[in-house]
Each structure stands twice: as structure tokens, then as C-alpha cells.
């Protein structure tokens, strides 16, 4: 634990050198999420009906999408694929500090870095749209504090799983981009799942990202016991499933790993 925290501090210091990472978050996460929101708001403003959404609930929905999307933008797949392809993973397999600790520290340092844009987005919402927060009760806050970290954990596990494809493929960035795009679309990142055609909604029920965006956000906005219970249970099941898949893939990948890079 101590070694993980020390490494996190080192990575955080490295991260601070590359401060453009924050601009990258704006271009890759905040702007793409804002565009559909503003399109829906323009339509709602002209009297269009969108399922049960009002302007206020739409803003609330996309606010939480933005927060989760920012915090899960750890880009761990790039670090992992570099480790495998450059062969530098071997040093983490030999050192007392394990590869798992190394990967965890990268993720933790990124999440700390990502806290800044998250706070900025939150502050902007408080200034320009305080109604989102005015109706919040302690139940909302408790639901948020449990569901958002679990959502980020599920997202990170999916990212690592895709990154482990580096043991088999030369370039995983394309695979990652395609997979996260499809999973995100099916689980409410581009638009609320309630607005999707039923075929996509049904498929979306079976993907892990359902418990990164749609289910937790539903439970945060409407923190009834049933909603929260269902979302947390789904997240925990996916964490177990993904954990098992990660273990199998990691073992199989290591057996293929030739430690010289490719």
C-alpha cells in the first residue's frame, strides 16, 4: 500500500509536467458530451417532447455523464500497451513492487489529476445552473458517493481488459476507441438510453458500461432504494465478472509475453 502511494506521488508529479492533459479532457470528453446536451436543450426549448425529460432533468443527466466520463478518462490502456510493446513490463514482474501496484498507481494519479476538471465542471454548474443541486437530499449524496466510485472502477476494469489485448495485437488504441464508443453509446453516454430505439436498449442491458453510465445516473437522479440497490448490485456483479476475466487474460497474456517488446 505504501509503495502504491509513493508511486502515485511520482506519477502525479510526472502528470503535472504534462498539464495539456486537462486540455485533452476538454476536447475529448467535455465538448463531445456538451454537444448532444445543447442539441436536446434547443429542441426542448422549441416545444419538442423527449420521453419524460425536461430541460432541467436533461441538464442533470448530462452533468453526471460528464463527471463520470471525466473521472474514468484514465487512459490506462495506453500505458499498459506501451508496457507490453516496449517490453518494460518485465521489470514490474521482477521487482518487489508488483505490476498491479504500478497499474493502480497510474490510475490513482490520473484520477487525482482529473479531479480538477471535475471540480471546474461542478463549479460552473453551481454558478450557471444551481437548480441541479438545490433539490439534492442526503440520499442523493450517499447514492453518489457509492455509485460514482464503483462506476469508475467498472470503467477502469473494462479499459484494462481491452489494454491486455496488447499481448495479442500490435496496436490496441483502435480496438479501445471502437469498443468504448459502442459500449458508451449503448449505455447512455451519447444520449439517455430512454431515447434509444428498443433494440439498442435491450442490447445495452447486457454490457458493463450500463453500470458506468445509465444505471448509476438513474439511481443518483432518483435515489429510491430499489434503483440504488439494483445499480450497486449490477456494478458489484460486473466487478466480479471483469475481475475474473482480467485474471484469466493477464495469465494467458503473460504466457505469451516475450519481454523484449514488439
Amino acid at each position, binding site marked *: 500500500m505504501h509503495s502504491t502511494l509513493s508511486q502515485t506521488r511520482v506519477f502525479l508529479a510526472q502528470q503535472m509536467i*504534462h498539464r*495539456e492533459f486537462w*486540455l*485533452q479532457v476538454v*476536447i*475529448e470528453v467535455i*465538448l*463531445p458530451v*456538451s*454537444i*448532444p446536451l*445543447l*442539441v*436536446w*436543450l*434547443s*429542441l426542448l*426549448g*422549441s416545444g*419538442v*417532447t*423527449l420521453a419524460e425529460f425536461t430541460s432541467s432533468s436533461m441538464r442533470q443527466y448530462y452533468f453526471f455523464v460528464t463527471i463520470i466520463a471525466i473521472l474514468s478518462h484514465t487512459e490506462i490502456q495506453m500505458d499498459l500497451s506501451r508496457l507490453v510493446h516496449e517490453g518494460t513490463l518485465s521489470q514490474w514482474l521482477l521487482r518487489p513492487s508488483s505490476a498491479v501496484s504500478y497499474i493502480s498507481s497510474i490510475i490513482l494519479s490520473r484520477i487525482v489529476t482529473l479531479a480538477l476538471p471535475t471540480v471546474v465542471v461542478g463549479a460552473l454548474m453551481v454558478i450557471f445552473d444551481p437548480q441541479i443541486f438545490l433539490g439534492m437530499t442526503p440520499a442523493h449524496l450517499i447514492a453518489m458517493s457509492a455509485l460514482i466510485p464503483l462506476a469508475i472502477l467498472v470503467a477502469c476494469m473494462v479499459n484494462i481488459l481491452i489494454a491486455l489485448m496488447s499481448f495479442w*495485437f*500490435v*496496436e490496441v488504441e*483502435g*480496438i479501445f*476507441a*471502437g469498443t468504448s*464508443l*459502442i459500449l458508451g*453509446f449503448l449505455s447512455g453516454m*451519447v*444520449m439517455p438510453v430512454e*431515447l*434509444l*430505439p428498443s433494440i439498442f436498449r435491450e442490447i445495452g442491458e447486457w454490457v458493463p458500461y450500463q453500470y458506468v453510465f445509465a444505471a448509476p445516473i438513474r439511481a443518483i437522479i432518483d435515489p429510491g432504494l430499489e434503483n440504488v440497490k439494483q445499480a450497486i448490485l449490477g456494478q458489484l456483479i460486473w466487478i466480479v465478472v471483469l475481475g475474473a476475466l482480467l485474471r484469466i487474460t493477464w495469465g494467458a497474456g503473460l504466457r505469451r509475453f516475450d519481454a523484449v517488446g514488439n
Partner: protein
Amino acid sequence: MSKKKIPEWRKTAKLLLWAAKLHIARWSAYRMNVVVWVFTIWCTIAIQVLFGALAYQASGENIFGNDGHTLVVFLGMTLLATGIAQSIVHGVVLHLGRCVWTGQFDYWLIQPPGIVVRLFLEDMGLVWFIPHIFVGAGILVWQLSAWLAAWAILIAIISAVVEIGVVLCICIPAIRWGRWDPSAGLWEYFDRARTIPVLRSGNLLLMIISAGVLHYSVALEVYKGSFSILILLAMAVAANVGAMYLLKNMVRSYSSASS
């Protein structure tokens, strides 16, 4: 016997042709990556088209004053334009970044051909975005009469020039002074932002956030005859003059070591 001098433009054309051949040969070696990326890019387009279709249906089949036919033409124009633009600029930015950061930019500056031609020779980025060009042009030819299709293609080509300028204006300073290549993120942003023409949405914030692709909305207005083509041409000139100015500054301030 006097040796006939080969004109400069023919030398450049030969080099460009040779670069294209090498580029295709190189990407042929990475066929699987190309397939994965083309699939990913088309998934993005499919998702955005679906988003556009849902927004169009929800709006009562008239989104921001545009009917279905206009939106299909808009899709064709944006695909064609972004196909041309990204085919050129993607590789340029990718290689420029690598060269500047590793100090290899020296060779670009001291060896022929000139820097601008060299930019296009290094990596033409042709492969991933070639389908855009065919599909975009195909949509326009399928949906419009010959004259209108030619008009839309001309507008798309000018829009492509604007996109090249915009990408270079953002990427050159980021590469030189930020050690960061924002082209991948920009591609993602552009693809999400250019689904719906937003110029007549009446939402200022939406227009500001879509600023990077606002030229496509202007292009649609030019196609419909609401705006003069000179506005689009002025945007193309402004964006590329800006890009060349930034390139000039980058070359001047480049310190000949990996930076």
C-alpha cells in the same frame, strides 16, 4: 548535348506520387490496424447518424429549419470534406509532432523539397479516410442532379481546406510549445460536432462549442444559396494563412534539438 531540365512542379508531382505509393505499401503491412480504425471511424459516424436521425424525428422532421433531404446532403458534404481534409492533415500532424520532438525536424529544414511539400510527403494519412471520400461523394451524386452535385462537391472541397487550416492552427502551437498532438482528440470532437448543422439553432452556446466545425454549417447555407461562396472562401484563406503564419513561427523558433 544539352540535358533537358525537368520542371520543379513535375519533380514535386513525382515525389508526391512516390510518397503515396510508399504510404499505401506501409499501411498494407498493418492491414489489421487499418481495418480496426476504419471500423471504429464508421461506428462513430453510424452513432452520430443515429443521433441525428433521432433528433430529427423528435423535432417533427425539421431540425433547425432543415428537412431530411438537406440533412442527407449535409452528411454527404461533411463526409467528403472531412475525408479529403483528414486524408491530408492527419499524417502531416502525426509526423510533424514526432519530428519536432525527436529533433528530426532538422532534416525537413535542410533537405529538399521545401517544408510545405515535405509536410505532405512524410505521411499522407490516406488510408483511414479514403472510404469517407467515396461514400460522401456517392451520397451527393445519388441524392442530387449533376449540377447540384458538382456545386455541393465544390463546396465540400472548400470546406476541406477550411478543416485543414483549423486542424493545423490548433495542432502546430500544441506540437511546438505544448509537446502535445491533439489531432486524435480533435478527430473525435469533429466527428461528434458535425452531425447537425447548428447555424440556425439559435443557441449561441451550441455554436460556440461547435466552433471548430461551424464552417460545415456555413457550407450548407452556401449550398442552399443563403450565403455567398465568398464567405466560405474567406474562411478557407483565413484558416490557412493562420496555419502558415504559425508554421513560419514554429520554424523560426525551432531549436534544432529534440524539444
